[in-house]
């Protein structure tokens, strides 16, 4: 299989709007996103393979049988979708590595995770996929008056979080755990049990000062544990939470980002939250939420 040939040339025209993006048209989202034809290849790629080609200011992503995305200079995204793909499927990929690379091109930071705001203070819930970031966010929003800044990827200049994707992405097990009616949710791909959950607990601020970062991990020991992250470890955790850090490295962003991350690390509190799933698939979001609430009281 040669994936680049699987993208059929079914270009559609027209601007693409991202309904969950809070600050449409404002910095850092002053970007032109539209359907159109993408180039077959980049002239001077730093790295190229059948799935993507990248240089410091260009990114060409080719997802077989779904779409191709072309991102340039942090200003424009062109999407060439494969026939029969719906708009939400495109958004799913757009609001992922495509936007992360866009931010890297702009010289901004992009973190994997969920950012929330309370009393003007912003926190980031980081950790690997499936760690429970969105679940804990849902708990903090439902019972502890936190407001959503962005879910999935969180964008920052190193001082503040920008309001970004304002919906939660949850898998079916969590949707069932919280008894959401499946019909009230948006399912971007019919073949996937991954849902977008709209919420009215949204921050009203365009930018929120960064106060703390929590890194979620699963504890294999039968206990909950917290550990302060200090010193150089902070920088390591922040870099590890960077969205698509390999792509950022290929774009030669690592050195530049480290300077900003080091400054950020000096100003914020960071903590690892390790939880033990009581039964398979279940964590206790209330218990983790209380740890964060206690930090807020200090």
């Amino acid at each position, binding site marked *: 299989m040669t994936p680049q040939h699987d993208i059929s040339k079914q270009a559609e025209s027209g601007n693409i709007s991202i309904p969950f993006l809070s600050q449409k048209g404002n910095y850092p989202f002053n970007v032109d996103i539209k359907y159109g034809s993408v180039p077959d290849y980049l002239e001077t790629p730093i790295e190229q*393979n059948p*799935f993507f080609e990248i240089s410091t200011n260009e990114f060409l992503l080719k997802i077989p049988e779904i779409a191709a995305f072309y991102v340039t200079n942090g200003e424009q995204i062109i999407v060439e979708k494969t026939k029969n793909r719906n708009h939400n499927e495109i958004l799913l990929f757009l609001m*992922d590595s495509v936007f992360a690379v866009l931010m890297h091109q702009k010289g901004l930071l992009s973190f994997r995770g969920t950012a929330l705001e309370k009393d003007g203070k912003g926190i980031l819930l980081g950790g690997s996929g499936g760690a429970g970031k969105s679940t804990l966010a849902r708990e903090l929003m439902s019972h502890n008056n936190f407001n959503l800044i962005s879910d999935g990827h969180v964008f920052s200049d190193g001082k503040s979080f920008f309001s970004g994707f304002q919906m939660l992405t949850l*898998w079916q097990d969590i949707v069932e755990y919280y008894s959401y009616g499946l019909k009230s949710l948006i399912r971007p791909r019919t073949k*996937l*049990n991954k849902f977008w959950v709209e919420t009215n607990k949204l921050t009203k601020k365009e930018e929120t000062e960064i106060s703390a970062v929590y890194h979620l991990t699963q504890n*294999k020991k039968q206990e909950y544990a917290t550990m302060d992250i200090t010193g150089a470890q902070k920088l390591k955790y922040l870099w590890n939470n960077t969205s698509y850090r390999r792509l950022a490295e290929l774009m030669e962003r690592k050195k530049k980002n480290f300077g900003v991350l080091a400054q950020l690390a000096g100003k914020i509190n960071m903590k690892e939250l390790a939880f033990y799933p009581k039964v398979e*698939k279940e964590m206790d979001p209330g218990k983790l939420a209380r740890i964060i609430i206690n930090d807020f009281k200090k």
Partner: protein
Amino acid sequence: MTKKLVWLSSYPKSGNTWLRIIISNLLGEKELDINDLEAMPIASSRYVFEFYCGFNSTNITHDEADQMRPVVNDLFAKDCEEITFRKNHDAFQYLENGQPLHGNPEFYKTIYIIRNPLSIVASLANHNQVSLDRAIEQMNKEDYSLSKTTRKHPGQLRQKLFSWRSHVKSWNENNELEVQTIRYEDIFYQPLETLKKAFTFAGLDFTDKKILDAYDKSNFNEIKQKEKQSVFNEKPPNVASFFRKGQPNSWKEELTQAQAQKVIESNYELMENFGYITPEVLSFAGLKK
């Protein structure tokens, strides 16, 4: 092209992790950390997949991911500058389009670790937290897969194992593949000869002393001690410990005659080919040759 990628393939609970620990003790310069096994990412690693794809692999289905895995595996193989081992539990298989899941066989070799299926039963039951009978059923299921969930965030890519029998055959009865099969029991009883054969096949040359030192450091008491000090990140959350007994004959204390009989009857030919059928085994199971 010199083959730098070496798949360490096995059905689960067949000694794959044990061999990786031995290799880590051979290649590593510092004391072994069981959670840092000399960079041998599993074939189903989402990290490796996304490293080459540049998008979130949980946005695509298991079937869609399978279609892309041959390309990813070829890219990985081409990037190997030195002998690189990768853990693998997938059965060898061709996709509907004829592509082999593991990529072009010209790019890799395979060390296949086989273990007496009678020994796998109790280990698999413990790992999956199921009864022995259920473990035997799983080993006989032709559509058995790991990480096949679609309801929750899937930690790894789906791995189609098929039955134990089909898994062994898939890797050992395909002329397209360059495979060195070693028996778990031979690593246990004849470590030097067995490991040397495997490493020479992979293209690595170690002194006998180095191999035996690494083997000694990898004995089950040592590993279990390390697991007590630092929880092994491949251990399922609800299982007390990943490493169990490791003894080749402990199945005799764990299986009933009927259970042993069922395993043998399902896999007789293969078990005989690999030397697992002995008069003693048949007698235990109440079977005649």
